[in-house]
């Protein structure tokens, strides 16, 4: 699949779609955290620690897409795709912050764009394919990270939320590797485990 040959609208939700996702996700997380507030303080703290790591991951993803979008390396409609995916991560971020605060936690702050650029070696990005490859790598890591934390939540509803977040990241990953011309995973159950 070549993304540039396909109408962006067919492939991706527009920014308004991202806003809808945000509201829906926040609603889901609010419901989950409503259940979580019944947990003891100690177990809730464990869930908050996991959620804060996830929030750090979302902060970084937003920064990575910002670096890509402002690099001058992305052409339309790939640029629109990057902005759309970034809007998903912003919705994830907002939902995670709301949930962490509901559980009595303190959301971890984002780092500077310069720090993300250094940690992700953004200076090495020289082409659109480089940007897409970095994004695909991060999205795959995020998919597996969300799947891997599910057993650790004491509140099962938070595990369900992690699965939904993983589904978004998987969508991003499969689109990105398709845009790069890479093969889709040939084996079943290739994520998580």
């Amino acid at each position: 699949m070549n993304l540039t040959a396909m109408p962006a609208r067919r492939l991706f939700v527009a920014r308004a779609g991202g806003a809808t996702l945000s509201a829906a996700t926040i609603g889901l997380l609010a419901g989950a955290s409503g259940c979580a507030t019944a947990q003891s303080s100690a177990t809730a703290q464990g869930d908050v620690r996991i959620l804060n790591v996830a929030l750090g991951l979302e902060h970084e993803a937003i920064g990575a897409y910002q670096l890509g979008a402002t690099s001058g390396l992305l052409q339309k409609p790939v640029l629109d795709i990057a902005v759309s995916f970034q809007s998903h991560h912003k919705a994830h971020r907002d939902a995670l912050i709301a949930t962490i605060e509901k559980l009595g936690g303190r959301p971890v702050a984002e780092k500077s764009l310069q720090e993300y650029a250094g940690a992700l070696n953004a200076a090495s990005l020289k082409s659109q394919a480089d940007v897409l490859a970095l994004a695909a790598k991060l999205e795959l890591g995020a998919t597996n990270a969300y799947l891997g934390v599910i057993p650790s939540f004491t509140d099962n509803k938070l595990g369900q939320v992690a699965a939904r977040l993983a589904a978004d990241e998987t969508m991003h990953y499969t689109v990105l590797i398709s845009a790069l011309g890479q093969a889709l995973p040939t084996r079943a159950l290739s994520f998580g485990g």
Partner: protein
Amino acid sequence: MRGASVCATLLAGLATAASAQPAGDPVAGRAAYEARCGGCHSVDADRVGPRHAGLIGRRAGSVPGYDYSPALARSRLVWDARNLDRWLQNPEALIPGQQMGYRLEDAAVRADIVAFLGTLRASGR
């Protein structure tokens, strides 16, 4: 005769221990590391998680400048292949109160990743 029996028992025990922690493939481990750990970690840079260069033999919670959980920072653990395997399987069981919720169930993949981590030397950063 009794000595031979004890020896056989010991050998059997060692074989069981070895099979419980299979030798990993560092090449496969590199790919698994990118896929499973790459959302939060890099070899040479601190990201959501700390960098992994020089991990084996390093005291847990000791990368300068990285904001560890108090539980990990207080731990006296020194990373080796065995405790890394336990960490990846269930970090909270190894060090309660730490902040990594990620669990990797697949023992063979864990062994590959640990083998890859064992190839990483300190970057001097």
